[in-house]
């Protein structure tokens, strides 16, 4: 034990050092524009921006670095899942160091707005760059990338001619051929929520029950598993976000799985889309700087990086999509405002519980 104490003491010392490492970093951030009021350095707040985000660091770090390069504004960030970050923002209230909140899923963004954590922003740039259905009607958040949740299939075992709509996957002809991710996945929750908004509760529940009856295997923990299940012949069709398939195809271009765009017929509601997006934190002490950053994120450079890196679709229609996903062709989006997904999410979860969709 005595031998264990020494390393422990050393680690203590080390940790003290690394604690100091972070302080000068924020100090540096404050240095370039010394004119503005220096804030408490301890919480990571200088003149730079503080971002709370649930997005992958590997994805957002290059963006932050690029922004710093272009504007000199340093960005400090904290990652966690969206719901804990929201609780954190709420509890920190007016003391929060955060300026910008970036997360995936319109349900989370809607909830953040609903909890009064974000402030409305008037921005011509954002209005011009981001289509109406991808932003909060009250301008408290804006979608920055589009994530299409579509049908994927093995074209040999389930030819495209057999496929038509999400609802059709409830048809008994798909019995034992369908694979789905769990109902705990927020993307399934938003899919079902928007279906409820369009089809009504009763019809949606019938469809979801049909899906459950058609499952070839218990719902899977992630979209990758659904893709692998189709590739290995366990099932013929599934529903996933396209970028998961994009990544899988990048690894193995021979994968016998491809995209089908459902509900494209005339009068059909189109492919369900969700967003990742951002808003200015209500108690940010530099809302202009925060807004400028979000505006930059909606522009060409950032959009290409943001969507391209993760094979998502850019929210800004002017920006071209990544090459790999161009091959899947154009599709018509469901134009329902994505904030509906948030408003109906809790009801969707309950509906899936009732239908036995685990």
């Amino acid at each position, binding site marked *: 034990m005595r031998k264990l104490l020494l390393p422990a003491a050393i680690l203590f010392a080390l940790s003290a050092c690394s604690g100091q490492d972070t302080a000068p970093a924020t100090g540096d951030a404050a240095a370039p524009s010394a004119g503005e009021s220096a804030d408490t350095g301890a919480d990571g707040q200088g003149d730079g921006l503080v971002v709370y985000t649930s997005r992958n660091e590997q994805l957002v770090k290059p963006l932050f670095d690029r922004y710093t390069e272009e504007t000199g504004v340093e960005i400090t960030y904290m990652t966690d899942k969206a719901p804990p970050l929201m609780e954190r923002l709420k509890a920190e*209230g007016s003391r929060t160091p955060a300026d910008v909140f970036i997360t995936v899923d319109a349900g989370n963004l809607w909830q953040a707005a609903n909890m009064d954590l974000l402030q409305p922003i008037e921005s011509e740039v954002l209005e011009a760059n981001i289509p109406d259905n991808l932003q909060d009607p009250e301008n408290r958040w804006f979608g920055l990338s589009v994530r299409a949740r579509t049908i994927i299939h093995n074209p040999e075992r389930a030819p495209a001619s057999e496929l038509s709509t999400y609802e059709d996957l409830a048809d008994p002809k798909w019995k034992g051929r369908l694979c789905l991710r769990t109902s705990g996945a927020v993307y399934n929750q938003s899919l079902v929520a928007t279906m409820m908004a369009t089809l009504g509760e009763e019809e949606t529940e019938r469809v979801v029950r049909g899906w459950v009856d058609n499952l070839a295997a218990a719902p899977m923990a992630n979209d990758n598993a659904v893709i692998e299940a189709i590739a290995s012949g366990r099932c013929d069709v599934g529903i996933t976000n396209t970028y998961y398939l994009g990544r899988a195809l990048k690894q193995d271009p021979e994968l016998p799985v491809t995209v089908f765009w459902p509900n494209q017929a005339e009068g059909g509601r189109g492919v369900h889309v969700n967003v990742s997006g951002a808003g200015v934190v209500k108690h940010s002490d530099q809302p202009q700087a925060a807004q400028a950053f979000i505006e930059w994120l909606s522009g060409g450079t950032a959009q290409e990086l943001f969507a391209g890196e993760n094979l998502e679709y850019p929210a800004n229609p002017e920006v071209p999509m990544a090459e790999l996903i161009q091959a899947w062709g154009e599709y018509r989006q469901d134009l329902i405002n994505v904030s509906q997904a948030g408003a109906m999410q809790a009801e969707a979860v309950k509906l899936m519980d009732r239908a036995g969709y685990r």
Partner: protein
Amino acid sequence: MQATAEHLIRQDRPATAGAARWWVWLAVLLTLPSLIPLLATAGALLRPDAEIIGHLWRYVLPQVAGNTFWLLLWVGAGTAVLGTALAALVSLCEFPGRRLFAWLLVLPLAMPGYVLAVAFIGLFDYSSPLAGWLRDGIGWQLPEIRSRAGLVAVLTLTLYPYVYLVAREAFASQGARAMEAARALGMGPWRAFWRASVPMARPWIAGGVLLVLMETLADFGAVSAFNYDTFATAIYKAWFGLFSTDTALQIAGVMLLVLLALVGMEVVTRRRQAFTAIGTAPAARRPLGRRGWWATAACSLVVLLALLLPLGQLGWYASGHLADHDTRYFASIRNALSLSAMAAALTTAAAFVIALAARERPGPLTTTTTRITTLGYGLPGSLLAIGLYVPVASFSTWVFERHGIELLLEGGLLLLLVAYGIRFLAVAHAPVSGGLLRIRPSLVEASRSMGVTGARQLCRVHWPLLRGSFATAALLVFVDTMKEMPITLMMRPFGWDTLATRVFELTSEGEYARAALPSLAIALVGLVPVIALTRRRGNAA
């Protein structure tokens, strides 16, 4: 002469009573942080949302309760049998490779449950290369891994070391005399084992199994990989799906009842019994002869499944993403190591105070402090995170807005370390209180009668006898902190990213293969202290 003796006693009594009272007050003080999440839970119970509760009651909780029950039962039984059997083999028998296995079998401790779950699904699921090869090659279909049996296997393989470690300690420290006495009474080796060794090790085994059950109850990573709904997943559903933190806390209230029932059962097993060691002569190991190779095979299989296969799987995935490795990894490793070391030291010290207070002053007060401080291990970390962070931060905000005073309670290391303490105190408490059990009260009295009291008594009497228990406690907390994710995510100060937060960031966007590198790092970095400690202790034994 008599007068002198009486005089001595009179002098002695108040002094020790004073010291004991001091320990009790310290224990009560250490209990206060644990009360915050409990009060948050109690507060939520006052704000029921009838509609959500009605829904959960009808469609979610019945299945969740059944699932949780069966999972606890099977994982409890599995780890009790596997942990005790392996501990008995390496401490009471002699077989080829015994010395090697004695410490190899501890190592799965460093493997996070969520990592083993993902690795097992990757290895044995329908779409895995192995399953495909068996299907196409010899027409054999592997049984469904994503089932209750599969989950029980995964949790048993990650959690059995909790039982193994304490049972081995118990078998090693109970001395040879008990076994010899049983043999002298005409019992065969098997009967002697069942009638003497196992009963004497029972509080340790029960303590280990209790830890396993708490960890199983709190687990979110492994159960969600298997899409197996328990109370922990119901909490996430209430919070993330139904946007109701109050309901999440209310479900935690139900979990607390389950926990209290588990703790109650464990208490019953050690009632009115003494478990002090009879002498310290180490037990002679029984040679198994040719049958010893079976023991070797069994131990090898456990090490293979719980350690080598998942490490190999991770290594294979990680090798495809080595480009992700950059200098920031060293910062993550350093942060993870420092946090784990600090948490281990502080939590073990707190556990010692609480265990000592309960021993010196047994009674309702110290029983309560023990119960409250050890409950945290049975609650999902995410829940402790909101149950502690939100009240503390809200309070600071309130103080700041009313009085303009910045309390700086959160956002630093302090709150994070306190949270680790609340979460992992039970892990440190089990070996430390077990170690205290082995110290005969007469020994303490003897030292007291020789005038060795207070700090000197701690150094001269308790410390040498408890060193092993302290090391075990610190090791368990260290490794658990290393693997911990939700508390670290919510409470780490800026710049304190760890390996676990990297795993989170990658898996949150479905990048499981890329998450292999930090996962492998967690396992390997966690292995180092486990190896250092167990090898040293193994050689000493």
